[in-house]
């Protein structure tokens, strides 16, 4: 199933894929400024609660692990679809959806715990910059989950075409990107606090 027979363009890059990479490049700048904002305001909150009072490293390590493993399942889903192993593809995609949802569950738990400890969006600079950064990331994860659910449903209602394969490829790029953003957040926001 050579892609050139469906050729969208002579450069051999499929349009959706090119567009996704351009989007990711711009999203990079978006997260770059949110992380920058967080770091610039770090340590400048006039009132508590402060990060060290709230962060729970074991818990966040688990959710980081969950997200990394979802990335692994994502790449496996693409691999199986390319091999035309539809059942395995479905299983892997389902795994990504579940892991992504677990990650979101951790985040909801974390946010409500922090809010109960007195950290609201308005409480201090830490609250505003932390919630905006991790909240934006969480919304990215949620969009990814919905997107994969739609691809999974598609695989049940009609046979997957090579076009679907490109869409899965693009969704996978998005998903991995969300994962690498979290790799940075985990280090720069959480771990650094305890060095």
């Amino acid at each position: 199933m050579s892609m050139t027979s469906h050729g969208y363009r002579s450069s051999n890059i499929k349009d959706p894929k090119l567009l996704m990479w351009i989007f990711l490049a711009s999203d990079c700048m978006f997260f770059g400024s949110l992380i920058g904002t967080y770091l610039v305001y770090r340590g400048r909150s006039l009132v508590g609660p402060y990060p060290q009072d709230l962060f729970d490293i074991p818990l966040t390590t688990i959710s980081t692990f969950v997200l990394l493993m979802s990335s692994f399942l994502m790449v496996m889903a693409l691999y199986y679809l390319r091999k035309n192993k539809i059942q395995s593809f479905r299983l892997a995609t389902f795994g990504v959806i579940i892991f992504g949802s677990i990650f979101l569950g951790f985040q909801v738990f974390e946010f409500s715990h922090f809010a109960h400890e007195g950290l609201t969006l308005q409480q201090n600079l830490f609250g505003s910059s932390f919630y905006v950064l991790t909240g934006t990331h969480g919304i990215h994860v949620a969009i990814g989950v919905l997107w994969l659910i739609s691809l999974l449903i598609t695989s049940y209602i009609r046979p997957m075409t090579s076009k679907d394969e490109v869409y899965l490829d693009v969704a996978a790029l998005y998903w991995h990107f969300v994962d690498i953003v979290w790799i940075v957040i985990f280090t720069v926001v959480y771990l650094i606090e305890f060095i």
Partner: protein
Amino acid sequence: MSHNNHKGGAAIYVITAVFLAILTYIEFGLIQYKWLGDGNPATILTIVALSIVKFIAVISIFMHLKDDNKTLFGFFAAGLVFAFAIFVAMSFLFTVNSTKNRIAAPTTDNLSSHESSNHNILVEEAGFRFPAGPKNQAYVIERPFESTKDYSFSLDSSNSSVSSPSNSQDSVALESFDWQELGQKTFNSCSSCHQATGTGIPGAFPPLNKNAALKYNSDREYLLKAVTFGLTGEIDVDGNSYNSAMPAWGYLSDEEIAAVLNYVLSSWDNPNTVVNFEAYSPNDVNSIRALNLSSDDTLKQRP
């Protein structure tokens, strides 16, 4: 698909996943178990290096960038470079130069003197109101006290009990509650907004000089409420209106809240304005805590 970007089997993905999991566990161990020792600068370097390795592993293997078209890599690299540039630019946001022309050049002696009220200057950048000053000192505000208190007391009504143990322990100290030093020390966390001499900043932070005494005269409990529960919304002080938020300081101890207000009421012009001043005791704070107000309630109860 005849692309070369998935020539290998799934093994490479499995290996990468195991590798990523191990690196994450190492990061965890470095922080949680202090494998390299507490406060070792090597820890931060290792953690940053490990994250970069993880980042590259996901991009090159999971996202197939290693074997994919170089144009794609070009886009992504450009995005990363811009993100980094934004980041570097932002880190200059609060340096001396970017705020220089708004700061009335202070001399070294008025910086340390208690009389200086112009060493804290309000900087409005990126929509945030923030007190800033020369040489970064004025706004790198450290946590003033080690408070082991639970922050959650203002959210749940069982809280008044949070502070009672400290009171019963101090029942002797209660009679001779020595607030002068504690009050002055605690006021360090107020002076960034209300200024060292209680003048406030017109339009941003209301004065405490005179104003606090007048509020005390009309309602002895109001100041306790404003500090413990915060205050939001539009207020008028001496013909100037302020519409901002005063953070809730409820996480300070009863002693600290009582002490700081006693300090305010006995400083500057306040002693000349206040009528029948009776110093607050930690117990007064404790009974205010039990009211469990919100910062909006404080506004409604403002005299």
